[in-house]
C-alpha cells in the first residue's frame, strides 16, 4: 500500500479512547495508591508513600479477601471446565434435537451478573425459594436452610449461581475447538479397536490443549475480576465469606470512599494477575509446538 499514514488515521479514535479511559486511569490508580485520598475526609489527604501498602499487609480484610479470591477462582474455573467439557462432548455427538439442546444449554451465557443474582435469590430465598421446598419435601434436609446467610453454605451457593452462568462459555469454546478435529482421527482409532475413553485421552484432549490453556487463563482472570453477581447476591457477606479482592475494591470505591487505600489494593490485584498470567503461560508452554 502506498499511503502509509492511512492505517494510523483509522486507528486514531480507538487509540484516543484507550488513552483517555484506560491508560490514563490506570496510571492514576498507581498515583493514587501512593496517596491518602478520601473525598469525604479531605483533612487526611496527602502523600503517603508506601504507607497504604504497609497498612494493607497488616489488614485482616485484605488477607481474607485474597484467600476467598483464590478459592473462588479455583473452584469456578475447575468446575466450569469439567462441566463445560462434559456438555461439549455430548453436544458434539450427532443426534436428533441437538440444535434445540444446544440453544437451551447456552442460554445463561447471555445473562448478566445482576440478573443471575435475582434468579438465584428466588431459588435460595427462605420464604419464596424453591430449593428449601424441594429439599425438605424429598427429605434431604430436615429444616429450611438460609443459603445466603449461613456462613457455612454461602460460598457454595454463590459458586453454584456463578457456575450456572459460566459453564456455557467453556462449553461453547470447547465445542468450537472439537469441531475442528478431523473425523478421520477417530475413525482410524476406532478401526484400531481403541475405546472411547482412550480416543478422548489421546485424540480429543491433546487437540484441545491450546483452547483449554487459553480459556482457563481468560476465565481465571475474568472470575478474579468478577463483581456483579457476588455484589448483588451477598454484597460480600456474611462475615466476609464471599468478599473477593474485587468486591473489597468495589466496596472501598462505593461505600467507604477510601480511594487511596482502594487504589493500593487495585495495584496489588494488578500485580497478582500479571504474575499469574506470566507463570501460567510459561508453565503451560503456550504457543510452542512439541
Amino acid at each position: 500500500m502506498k499511503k502509509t499514514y492511512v492505517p494510523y488515521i483509522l486507528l486514531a479514535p480507538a487509540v484516543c479512547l484507550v488513552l483517555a479511559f484506560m491508560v490514563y486511569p490506570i496510571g492514576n490508580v498507581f498515583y493514587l495508591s501512593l496517596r491518602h485520598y478520601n473525598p469525604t475526609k479531605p483533612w487526611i489527604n496527602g502523600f503517603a508513600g508506601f504507607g497504604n501498602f504497609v497498612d494493607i499487609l497488616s489488614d485482616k480484610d485484605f488477607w481474607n479477601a485474597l484467600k476467598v479470591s483464590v478459592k473462588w477462582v479455583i473452584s469456578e474455573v475447575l468446575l466450569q471446565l469439567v462441566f463445560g467439557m462434559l456438555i461439549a462432548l455430548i453436544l458434539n455427538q450427532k443426534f436428533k434435537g441437538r440444535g434445540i439442546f444446544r440453544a437451551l444449554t447456552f442460554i445463561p451465557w447471555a445473562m448478566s451478573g445482576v440478573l443471575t443474582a435475582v434468579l438465584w435469590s428466588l431459588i435460595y430465598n427462605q420464604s419464596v425459594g424453591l430449593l428449601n421446598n424441594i429439599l425438605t419435601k424429598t427429605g434431604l434436609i430436615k429444616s429450611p436452610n438460609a443459603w445466603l446467610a449461613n456462613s457455612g453454605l454461602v460460598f457454595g451457593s454463590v459458586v453454584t449461581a456463578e457456575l450456572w452462568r459460566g459453564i456455557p462459555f467453556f462449553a461453547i469454546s470447547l465445542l468450537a475447538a472439537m469441531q475442528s478435529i478431523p473425523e478421520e482421527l477417530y475413525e482410524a482409532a476406532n478401526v484400531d479397536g481403541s475405546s472411547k475413553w482412550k480416543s478422548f485421552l489421546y485424540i480429543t484432549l491433546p487437540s484441545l490443549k491450546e483452547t483449554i490453556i487459553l480459556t482457563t487463563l481468560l476465565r481465571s482472570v475474568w472470575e478474579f475480576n468478577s463483581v456483579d453477581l457476588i455484589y448483588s447476591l451477598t454484597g460480600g457477606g456474611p462475615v466476609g465469606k464471599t468478599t473477593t479482592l474485587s468486591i473489597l475494591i468495589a466496596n472501598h470505591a462505593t461505600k467507604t470512599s477510601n480511594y487511596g487505600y482502594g487504589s493500593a489494593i487495585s495495584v496489588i490485584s494488578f500485580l497478582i494477575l500479571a504474575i499469574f498470567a506470566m507463570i501460567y503461560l510459561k508453565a503451560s508452554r503456550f504457543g510452542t509446538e512439541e
Partner: protein
Amino acid sequence: MKTKLSDKIFRRWLPLVLINIFVLIPIWWTLVTSLKQEGDILKKPVRYIPDPATLENYMRAWVNCRFDRYFFNSMRIAVVSVFFIVVIAIITGYALSRFQFQGKNGFMLMLLCIQFIPHAVLLIPLFQIFNTMGLIGKPLSVILVCITFQFPFNSILIRGFIGGIPYTLEEAAQIDGCSWLMAVWKVVIPMLIPGIVTTAAFAFIGVWNEFLFSMMFLNDANNYTIPIGLKMMQGEYNISYGALAAGAIIAMSIPVALFAYLQKYLVTGMGAGAVKG
C-alpha cells in the same frame, strides 16, 4: 457405527437432561413467580405453576417500580453505545484487516490485554475523570465506558468478517472510477451487513448487562438502568417478589432474543472469539 442403547442413555440423554434441568429451573421458577398473584407467592403449600396466572406483577414492575423508565434508559444507553461501538469497530477492523503497518501486532496485543483489565480497578479513577468532566449522573459517562470496554473485542470480530470480503472487489470498484471511500461504502459495507448485525448483537448484550459503572456513576433514580433497578428492588426492605421476578423477565427478554439470533454463530464463529467472557 451403532451406539448401544445403554450408551445413549447414560452418555447422552441422562446428563443432557440433568444439565438442562439445572439451566432451566431458575428461569422457569422466575417466570412462575412473576405470573403468580401476590398472595400466592408466599402461600404454603408451594404451587409449581401459577394458578390463577396474572400479569399484575408486570404492571407493578413496569409502572410502580418504574421499569418503564429503566427500560427506556437502558435502551438509550445501549442504542447510542452500540452505534459508536460498531462504527469504531468497523474503522479499526478495516485498518487491521487491509493494511500492513508498523505497530500492528502491538496494537492487536493491546486490544487483547484490555480484556484482562479488572473493571473494579477502574472505578475510582474513572469516577474522578467523569467528575472533573461534570458527567457524573449523566448517561454519557456510562456510554463512554461501554464504548471503551466493548470496541476491542468487536473490532477483532469484525476484522474477521472484513477479511472474508475479497480485496479485489474493492480494487475493481476503484478501477471503475470509485474513490477509495466510495468503494468501501458501496462494496464493503453492503457485504459486511451480517458481520455488522452480529457485532451489534454482541455489543448490545454487553452494554445492556453493564452494572458496575452504572451503579457508581448514575446516582439519580431517573437515570437508573435495568440492572440498577433490579439491584435496588432486591435491597428493598418490603420486597415484592412478584414484581422482582417480573422485572427479571423484562430484563432478560432482550438478551435472550438476541441470543436466539446469535447462537448459530456462537460455536462456528467463536473460535477466535474465545476472548469474550
